[in-house]
């Protein structure tokens, strides 16, 4: 039975070449949530980092810096869980094809943002980040609804709340611009 569960975990979590010695395993959905959230987080951090030198709105610069720092800390927590469970930090490239792949902003978006300055940059970053954090809310609600590990679900709940609040702030910034 133990072997069956292990094999099942392999099947469900994307059959990665995980360390065969690992005994502790996270729930497959928790693992997938974390493996999908991590690159999403990193891309978000990459985009908000552009605000420092480009944004015109001071409130946006402040929010962007706080998003960058809080998401970096969250990413460390998520990495810690995956590592302790002997899971890879990212799923093998083809393992999510059945899941439609990652919800991710267009990588070209970073290039588009990089080319902008001032009010134009602000508007584009706000719209892109609203979309990006809206995707994060979706993933978080998936984990809180269908995940298993209470700590992971707790983080997902904070992601849901904080991203929802950020979207509210960003919509206000857009309205005022």
């Amino acid at each position, binding site marked *: 039975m133990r*072997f*069956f569960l292990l*094999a*099942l975990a*392999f*099947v*469900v979590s994307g*059959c990665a070449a995980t360390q065969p010695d690992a005994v502790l395993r996270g729930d*497959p*959905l928790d693992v*997938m949530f974390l493996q999908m959230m991590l690159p999403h987080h990193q891309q978000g951090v990459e985009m908000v980092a552009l605000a420092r030198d480009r944004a015109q709105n001071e*409130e946006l610069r*402040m*929010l962007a*810096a*706080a998003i960058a*720092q*809080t998401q*970096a*800390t969250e990413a460390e927590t998520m990495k810690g869980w995956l590592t302790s469970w002997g899971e890879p930090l990212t799923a093998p490239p083809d393992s*999510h094809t*059945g*899941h*439609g*792949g990652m*919800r991710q*902003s*267009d990588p070209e*978006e970073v290039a588009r943002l990089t080319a902008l300055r001032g009010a134009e940059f602000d508007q*584009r970053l*706000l*719209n*892109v980040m*609203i*979309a*990006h954090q*809206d*995707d994060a809310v*979706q*993933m978080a*609600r*998936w984990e*809180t*609804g*269908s995940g298993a590990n209470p700590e992971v679900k707790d983080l997902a*709940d*904070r*992601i849901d*709340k*904080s*991203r*929802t*609040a*950020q*979207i509210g*702030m960003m*919509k*206000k910034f857009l*309205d*005022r611009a």
Partner: protein
Amino acid sequence: MKTRTRLALASLSATTAVVVAFIVPTTPAIAHGTMSDPASRVYTCKNEGPETPKSDACKAAVAAGGTQAYYDWNEVSLLEAGGRHRQLIPDGKLCSAGRDKYRGLDLQRADWPAKRVSPGPLTVTYHASAPHSNSNFEFYITRDGWSPTQPLRWSDLVHIQTFNGQNPSTFTNWTLNIPNRSGRHIIYSIWQRVVGSNEAFYTCSDVDFGGGTTTPPTTTTTTRPPVTTTTTTQPPVGGTWAAGTTYSVGNRVTYNGVNYECQLAHTAISGWEPPATPALWRRL
């Protein structure tokens, strides 16, 4: 992995195999898709080009909510819907599935590009870039007398037909029996995945029956929301942490009886409570 699976399955009793068959597909597969004919709003604007929309409606949608929605045209979905569509999506936001990312799709306009249709049989096509088996597809049309310049509410939708237990391919056709209508209407669809995921997809396709009410001129009244002045509340020293307050580096707060000092200037929000955000707060 294949060897492992085979080995594992070989060692299973028949009853356990049934359990596996049930459990394995619960992998949270994320499907993707939207209506391609009549084209949904998101499909129309995606085809016009997110950066270069042609129609006034798509231009307005991009202006209202940015371009990202149209790159991710196949994800107007709720991952944890599980059939609770009416509970999760508020009236007026049916086209965006209540998601801010897709808010441009909810614009109340009489000039969304629309397919000319007639009452009677209509073949519709769903474009699923990641089709998944075991899905239910529900189709609706707006009630007689509905106008595209009004918000779309759940009570505006009249059920046409539901196709259960569908195994869609990349392009799947169904024939709907369209009731009598005049003027502009919306064909609304819900794709609810049944096995392996709670995810559901939502589409708004504009159609035009001709005749009926004259299309009202598009009054582009850009309603400016009232300017909300942000009052940067200076926190009293030693005050209780409160969402909505803007904190500067060095500000001190109490949260659940514990004192914290602000490490990075920010406006506090729910989900960023001091114990959970060491990047923002240092415990004293």
